């Protein structure tokens, strides 16, 4: 018994040590690359903003932890927080070891090359193809935070029932096989979607479609939570925690979108303004929809709408002006409301906290919306959309979204099944009833007597 219990942690420790040993071999080579790079001028304002933005995006993962944590039952809140914080640990390490290289090192159309393993050659001078005015490592750490929060978003789909060890293996594989490639396709030099002219300012495809579709797959493969077969879901155990989390997400999203301008410039300001506007439109739209449909607007609905608006504006933030962002945020809530309140009950999958219903749907809508509302007047490096006389962009966006949906769906399904061969994906029925806090982590979030 003991030996199986310690298998995974020992294996993880060995992988970590091996990786560190491997990367220690290259440092001499790294300095050579740094020397050979053309000296570009570092802009202090740009660098300050991108570092600040990286910290803002970092905060979104703990924010997401509270957002999700408040929504589950009290016996599972720690398991959610733990999954989010562990994603920060695991993916941060994966990113510097191999994730960044696979995602951003110029390679073929599908994968980055392995030259930047262990951040070899990723130095403190700018890498002009990505960001000519900030140190290369600033760009790297900014992107690291995106790589962390994306798998963390999926937690909402398998909340309250996934085994912790299976979760660890799942996010490690998922980052490597789904996030890193799709990130390379869309943003990496040589990526085939990038070369096709796909516009994804801050991660509508890379983050939201990707995580949203994986969520749908995870919810379907894992099956429903116990007790959700024929009864309505239990109410959230702590909504104020959820609202706190939503506030942190909204706040962090300024770094997510405005930071994606990779400089303290006009595009960043545009992204900042449309981000706030779309979130506001999404929040109020959801409240109104509930008012009409159920008679009362709810707190949970309002913050859910704001998150939908934020996710939808993500790919568009640097390409659209403020009036379209109102429409993008508003319609994001309409589409997500339909997904969550109509489609989910109809098909009966248990996407526990609506990771697909909110991020997947608004991600797809946002990517399409770029094809409708993008304008070169906002960003000369972007493109015009359908409403500015360029229907081709809409076609490009739709194809890119479709490819990402297909790959994320098939890939996530295979990974879930693969991990399922080696370990149970779900906790046992008893452990699920006791709650993941006690059964997976031997801790309880709350006491009765103080």
């Amino acid at each position, binding site marked *: 018994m003991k030996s199986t219990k310690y298998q995974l942690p020992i294996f993880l420790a060995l992988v970590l040590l091996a990786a560190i040993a491997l990367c220690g071999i290259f440092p001499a080579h790294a300095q050579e690359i740094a020397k050979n790079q053309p000296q570009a001028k570092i802009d202090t304002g740009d660098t300050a903003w991108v570092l600040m933005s990286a910290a803002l995006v970092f905060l979104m993962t703990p924010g997401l932890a509270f957002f999700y944590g408040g929504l589950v039952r009290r016996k599972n809140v720690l398991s959610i927080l733990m999954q989010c914080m562990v994603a920060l640990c695991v993916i941060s390490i994966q990113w510097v070891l191999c994730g960044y290289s696979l995602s951003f090192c110029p390679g073929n159309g599908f994968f980055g090359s392995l030259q930047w393993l262990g951040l070899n050659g990723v130095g403190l001078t700018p890498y002009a193809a990505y960001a000519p005015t900030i140190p290369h490592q600033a760009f790297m750490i900014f992107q690291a935070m995106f790589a962390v929060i994306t798998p963390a978003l999926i937690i909402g789909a398998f909340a309250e029932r996934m085994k912790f060890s299976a979760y660890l293996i799942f996010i490690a594989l998922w980052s490597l096989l789904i996030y890193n490639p799709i990130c390379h396709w869309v943003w990496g030099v040589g990526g085939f979607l990038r070369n096709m002219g796909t516009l994804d300012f801050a991660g509508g495809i890379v983050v939201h479609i990707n995580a949203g579709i994986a969520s749908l797959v995870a919810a379907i493969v894992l099956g429903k939570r116990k007790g959700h077969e024929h009864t309505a879901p239990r109410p959230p155990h702590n909504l104020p925690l959820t609202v706190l989390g939503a506030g942190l997400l909204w706040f962090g999203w300024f770094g997510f979108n405005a930071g994606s301008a990779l400089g303290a410039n006009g595009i960043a300001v545009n992204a900042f303004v449309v981000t706030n506007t779309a979130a506001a439109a999404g929040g109020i739209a959801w409240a109104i929809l509930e008012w009409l449909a159920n008679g009362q607007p709810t707190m949970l609905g309002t913050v859910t709408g704001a998150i939908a608006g934020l996710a939808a504006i993500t790919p568009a933030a640097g390409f659209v002006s403020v009036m379209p962002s109102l429409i993008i945020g508003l319609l994001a809530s309409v589409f997500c409301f339909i997904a969550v309140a109509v489609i989910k009950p109809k098909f009966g999958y248990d996407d526990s906290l609506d990771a697909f219903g909110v991020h997947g749907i608004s991600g797809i809508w946002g990517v399409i919306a770029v094809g409708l509302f993008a304008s070169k007047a906002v960003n000369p490096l972007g493109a015009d959309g359908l409403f500015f006389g360029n229907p081709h962009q809409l076609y490009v966006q739709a194809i890119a979204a479709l490819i990402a949906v297909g790959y994320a769906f098939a890939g996530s399904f295979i990974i879930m099944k693969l991990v399922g061969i080696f370990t149970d994906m779900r906790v046992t029925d008893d452990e699920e009833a006791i*709650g993941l806090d006690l059964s997976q982590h*031997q*801790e309880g979030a709350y006491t009765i007597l103080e």
Partner: protein
Amino acid sequence: MKLIIAIIQPYKLEAVMEELDKAEIHLKTVSHVLGCGRQKGRSEIYRGVKEAGNLLKKVRLEIAVNDNYVEATIKAITTAAKTGQVGDGKIFVLDLENCQRIRTGEKGAEAIG
């Protein structure tokens, strides 16, 4: 009239409620309580230190029933809450002197259902 007080494992509450519903016993009061029996229970660990905690989290059910429902209630609770392990809990059956519905002023057997 009897008052049935059951102390059960918290994670068995849903199953017990389901069984009670099946037996058409719908009125109950539920509370979180702490208690200790003879079992060791699932202790929690904080930063690697095992918590001593003799008191364990339990759920307490209070159900007032007419005499002819006593056996059905006990059966429903035991069916759902029994695991065979130490710590499954206990059921206490008390004589109930009176009962009055606040809204209507009804008393006794009528007020219970």
